[in-house]
């Protein structure tokens, strides 16, 4: 039995099923935007990032989807600051027991050392001297990607829209940029050098070869082979219909693998040609192969957001799931070779994760 956590504009939906059949088994936070939800498999605990239009962003926690959700503590910016916490975009298990990390807007990192019940702002990142110069995109300044390093709890990489990649080797005590090779085509050519106005859309580390990361950028798909210091363009003339998109996933057992869902362009954020297709590389981005068997093939102009693509397992039996703002959720049980529809008519999907 597979359990999907689907964060939507109007609540968190839990889908249960297997093979090609899923049903809604629970709904929580009715009416509230759920930006992200996940389950920490170490503890079995569920997390939901909820942004009430009235009461602000919160993380709620439960050990039982049928039980009560409890609000986690500590997710706020320091009193007396000009800024307030706007939204929480992701929760990621750390490497050490009971350690979790959460990213949010305005470009902030929180850490928990007690399994997610209480959180503390990462001060060194909050106090970055260039922060006053950081600029959000229209969607806000979202810290959405946090890549841990297996066996090395001190090594972190983070992706922020629109402040680029940040790296730490000491558990977040110090931070540095990791933006070499990224080309922001949305800026004039004479303002691209040394800018940190860099709109990372999604970033993942290959756990079996941790110095390798893949990134979907705001116009560009990239790979890093040096732990995020520099980036190589793998989206140009490699078989993708477009190098614009939001989410990205990888096969954890294959460091040469990545999956993306291209959209037309930044000014037309829908699936190209009215066809929904996932693209897969198994050669580190040298080439991409279309994976769309079973996905809508005509008159389908969908938008898939950055947290709305998930995987479970690895290899040929890896499961893939993604949701669209149309309210459709699609799944594959054979690493993208064939697809089925897992749900329709949900509210606009913000995130999908396999519990």
């Amino acid at each position: 039995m597979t359990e999907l956590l689907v964060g939507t504009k109007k609540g968190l939906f839990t889908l249960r099923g297997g093979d090609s059949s899923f049903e809604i088994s629970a709904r929580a936070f009715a009416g509230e935007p759920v930006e992200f939800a996940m389950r920490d498999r170490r503890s079995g605990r569920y997390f939901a990032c909820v942004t009430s239009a009235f009461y602000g962003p919160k993380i709620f926690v439960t050990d039982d989807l049928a039980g009560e959700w409890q609000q986690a503590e500590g997710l706020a910016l320091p009193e007396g600051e000009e800024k307030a916490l706007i939204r929480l975009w992701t929760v990621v298990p750390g490497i050490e027991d009971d350690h979790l990390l959460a990213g949010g807007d305005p470009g902030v990192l929180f850490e928990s050392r007690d399994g997610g019940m209480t959180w503390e702002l990462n001060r060194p990142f909050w106090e970055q001297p260039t922060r006053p110069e950081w600029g959000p995109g229209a969607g806000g300044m979202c810290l959405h990607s946090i890549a841990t390093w297996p066996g090395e709890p001190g090594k972190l990489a983070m992706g922020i829209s629109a402040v680029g990649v940040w790296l730490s080797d000491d558990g977040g005590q110090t931070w540095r940029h990791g933006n070499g090779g990224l080309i922001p085509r949305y800026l004039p050519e004479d303002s691209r050098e040394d800018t940190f106005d860099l709109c990372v859309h999604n970033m993942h580390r290959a756990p079996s070869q941790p110095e390798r990361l893949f990134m979907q950028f705001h116009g560009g798909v990239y790979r890093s082979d040096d732990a995020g210091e520099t980036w190589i363009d793998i989206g140009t003339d490699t078989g993708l219909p477009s190098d614009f998109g939001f989410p990205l996933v990888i096969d954890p057992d294959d460091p040469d693998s990545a999956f993306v869902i291209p959209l037309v362009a930044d000014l037309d954020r829908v699936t190209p040609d009215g066809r929904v297709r996932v693209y897969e590389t198994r050669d580190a981005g040298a080439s991409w192969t279309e994976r769309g068997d079973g996905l809508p093939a005509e008159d389908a102009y969908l938008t898939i957001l950055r947290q709305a693509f998930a995987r479970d397992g690895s290899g040929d039996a890896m499961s893939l799931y993604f949701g669209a703002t149309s309210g459709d959720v699609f799944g594959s049980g054979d690493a993208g070779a064939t697809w089925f529809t897992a749900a329709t008519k949900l509210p606009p999907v913000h995130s999908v994760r396999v519990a």
Partner: protein
Amino acid sequence: MPVVKLRAPLTELTGGKRELQLDGATVRDVLQALENEHPAIAGWILDERTTIRQHINVFVNGERGREDTTLTPEDRIHVLPSISGG
């Protein structure tokens, strides 16, 4: 005169012109001159308050500019859509 550089779809409103020399002492002046020369672009960059629209970025010689940024005849003004989250 300052040069304004545009990208699609704005170029569709200027008869395909990507670069235009326009007179003006500020960014607002130049963008209003652009509207006078190409009325179809009125309302696309500046709103009815003559404020640069929220999701439009204007760069002057590679630096972010505002409506009241002053210009010299050698300046280059890029008009670009802003990046947006998703």
